């Protein structure tokens, strides 16, 4: 059973590497953000698997956290790319 987990981990790391390639290559900024988002999601998987492998439940917090942050990052980057700034000031319109 452990082998299965290890194998899954390796495969996921491989997919991470592929995503990383997209992250590095681009070619456009949105591409990179998409890659980053995918990266975040894969990271969640990695952490999940790792917590099984390490054998502790204390990393389960990390999963939710990652989900939150990944979402946050995606939104922030998207807005940055779309508008060049992250927050609307609220006084311009």
């Amino acid at each position, binding site marked *: *059973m452990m082998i*299965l*987990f290890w194998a*899954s981990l390796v*495969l*996921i790391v*491989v*997919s*991470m590497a*592929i*995503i990383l*390639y*997209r992250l590095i290559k681009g070619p*456009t*900024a*949105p*591409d990179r*953000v*998409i*890659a980053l*988002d*995918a990266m975040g*999601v*894969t990271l*969640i*998987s990695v952490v*999940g*698997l790792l*917590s*099984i492998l390490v054998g502790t*439940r204390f990393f*389960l*917090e990390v*999963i*939710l956290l990652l*989900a*939150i942050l*990944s*979402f946050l990052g*995606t*939104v922030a*980057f*998207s*807005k940055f*790319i*779309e*508008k060049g700034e992250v927050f609307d000031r609220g006084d311009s319109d």
Partner: protein
Amino acid sequence: MEILINILVAVPLIVGVVFTLVTAIGLNRFPDPYTRAHAASKSSTVGVLGILLSVFLHFWLIEGHFSPRILLGILFLFITAPVGAHMMGRAAYFSGVKPSELTVKDELGEDIRRHEGK
């Protein structure tokens, strides 16, 4: 019983891993950000859901630890993944990235034009 549990844990895991791999491949193979976003959001969400489910089951069934956080995480991902994809698509569109030549229809563009035409 043991085998059953193992299978219960393994199946979502395998599904998840496969989807994740598919995501990665898709991300590299698709021609433009819009299609890539599609790959990233849909298949990767399924992928991570599978894996998380497996992790949840592992902890619940094997280590006897019921973790509501994972369920919460799954829920969270379910809510946010589409929104994220939407944002990225918008971002790509408004930052002026040209869709691939294979694109059939630009509905948003039509909408905008109609909006401005009014």
